[in-house]
C-alpha cells in the first residue's frame, strides 16, 4: 500500500474510533447536584470556552475556585469543598455585591458584575432552535453535492467524447 493510501486509511480509521469520555463525572453536572440547580452550568462559567482544559480557566469565578482548592480533572470532593467555602465566605468574583453562589443558584453568571448582563450569542442565524442537531443533515447535504459533482464529471467526459467543449 502506498504511503498516501496508508495515511488516508489511517485517518478514516481514527475518525471512526468512538470518543472516550472522561471516567469521572464532570464538574458542571456535579455543580448542578451540589447546589441543587435546575440547570447544568456551561463550562464557560470557569473556562475560556466549552472545551475546558488545563490552563484555560480565565473567568474570575473559575480562578477564584482554584484559589479555594479546586483543580482540573474531576474531583467531586474538591468541588464540593470549594463551593461550600465560596458560599460560607460570600465569594463575589464579579465584584457586583451579589455572592457568586447566589448568582449561580439564580441562573446568573457569577463572572458578570451586575448580574443579569447579556451573554454573547454565536452564529449568523441567531434564533431559537434554528440549527440544533443538523450535523447528520450536513453530511447528507455534502454527500449530495459530491454526487452532483460526479454526475457533472460524467456529463463533461461524455461531451468531450463527442467533441463538444
Amino acid at each position, binding site marked *: 500500500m502506498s504511503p498516501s493510501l496508508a495515511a488516508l486509511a489511517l485517518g478514516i480509521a481514527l475518525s471512526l474510533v468512538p470518543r472516550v469520555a472522561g471516567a469521572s463525572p464532570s464538574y458542571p453536572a456535579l455543580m448542578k447536584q451540589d447546589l441543587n440547580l435546575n440547570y447544568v452550568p456551561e463550562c464557560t462559567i470557569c473556562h475560556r470556552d466549552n472545551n475546558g482544559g488545563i490552563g484555560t480557566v480565565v473567568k474570575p469565578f473559575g480562578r477564584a475556585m482554584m484559589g479555594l482548592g479546586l483543580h482540573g480533572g474531576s474531583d467531586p470532593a474538591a468541588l464540593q469543598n470549594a463551593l461550600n467555602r465560596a458560599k460560607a465566605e460570600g465569594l463575589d468574583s464579579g465584584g457586583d455585591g451579589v455572592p457568586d453562589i447566589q448568582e449561580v443558584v439564580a441562573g446568573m453568571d457569577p463572572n458578570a458584575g451586575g448580574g443579569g448582563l447579556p451573554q454573547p*450569542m454565536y452564529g449568523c442565524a441567531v434564533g431559537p432552535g434554528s440549527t440544533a442537531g443538523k450535523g447528520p443533515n450536513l453530511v447528507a447535504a455534502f454527500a449530495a453535492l459530491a454526487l452532483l459533482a460526479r454526475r457533472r464529471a460524467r456529463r463533461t467526459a461524455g461531451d468531450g467524447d463527442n467533441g463538444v467543449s
Partner: protein
Amino acid sequence: MRASGAIVWAAGLAFGFLLSVCFPSPAQAYPWMIRHGYTGCQPCHTDPSGGAGALTAYGRAQSELLLQMRYGDKTEEASRTAGLLWGQVQPLPDELRLGGDFREALLAVQPEGAPLTQQIITMRADLYGDIKSSRFRAAGSIGYAPTGALAASLTDAPKDNLISREHWVGAELDDEGGWLLRAGRLTVPFGVRMIEHSLWARALTRTDLNATQQYGISLAVSKDHFRAELMGIAGNFQVHPDDFRERGYSGYFEYAPTNNAAVGVSSLFTRARRDIFYSVTNYRQAHGIFARYSPIQPLVLLAELDWIYQSLTWHGHRGGFAAFLQADDEPVQGFHLMLTGEAMNGGQEGEPPSFDAWFSGVWFFAPHADIRVDTIFSTLGVPPVAGSASSYTNASTLLAQFHVYL
C-alpha cells in the same frame, strides 16, 4: 475531470464530513521553515502571514521536498502525490487553490491530586479555497465543529455547528503580489503564527488560528528582507449583540537581515463594550517582540515576549505577560524534536507567574500526513482569593495527534 478522479474527490469530501470536528486547532503554520531560508510565508501559503488557508502549488511541492520524510528518495522534483488529494484529481489551474485539513487527538490530563481524565478529540475538519482573477483574490474556509469554535460558527447551536474561520476578498496591489489588501474575516496578525495554538502567547493575546479571527481590513506586504501586516479590526460579526465585538487594530513587522534570522515587533489594541470573556467593558492591548533563528540547519529557535494589559470595568487594571522559547531540532528530514518553555502572568492582583514545559515530537511520515506527541508539565499560579494566599496547581498533559491534509 476524470470519473475516477471525481469518485476520489467525492470520497474525500464524504470522509471530511464524517469526521466530527474541531477543538480549536490551527491548520499548518511552520515558522521553523526558516531553516530552509524561508523567512516569509507567502511562497507556500495563500495567506500572506502564513498558517491559514490553502497552500500554493509551490507550497505543496515544498511540503513533499522539504517537510516530509523521504526515506532515501533524492529526486528534486515533487511527485504527483504533492497535489490535491494526493494527486488523484487533475491538476487545478494555478489561480484556484483548494485544500482541506483534518486532525484527531488523544488528550490525557493528570492534575496533581486529581484523577486522570482522557478523551479522544476530533480536531479540525475544514475545507479551504482561494481563487485569483487578474489581481483580485477571494478565499474562504468552511468546516464542521461538534464542539467549540463558537466564535467562528455560522450556525447557532451549542454544538454541531457549521463554521467558517476565514472568508475575504482582496486585491494584489503590485505585479509580484507582494502587497495584498484584504477585507473580510481574517486571522489576526500578531507574533509568531504557529501550530501550538494553546501557547499562552497566542491564548492571552487572542491571536491564535482557532476561532479568534476578526472581521476587518488588512494590508500585508512581503518582500525579501521584511514582511508586515496591519489590520483594522471591525469586530467578529459571528458574535451577537454588537456590544461583544472588539474594535481596534493589530499588526506586526518582521525584518530578516539574513535568510536564517528574523526579528519582529507586534502591537494590538482593541476595545469592546462587553468583553467576550468578562462581559464588561475591556480596553485590551498587547505589545511584544519575537524572533526566529536557525544557527545551523537542523536547529531553529523561536521566541516571543508579549506585554498584555487590560482595563476591565469592575475588575480593575491588569498588566501581565506571556512568553515562550522553543527549540526545534530536525535530526532527519521529516522528524522533529521540540523543547518549549513558557511563562505567563494574567495580571490579577497577587497572581504568581505560571510556567510550563513541552516535550514534543513530530513525524511527517507520509505525503500530507503527520503524527505528533506532546507531553506538557504545567505549574499554574493561582491568585489569592477570599483570604486565602496565592498558590500553585500542577498538571501533566499528554497530547497525541494525527493530522492529514488534502
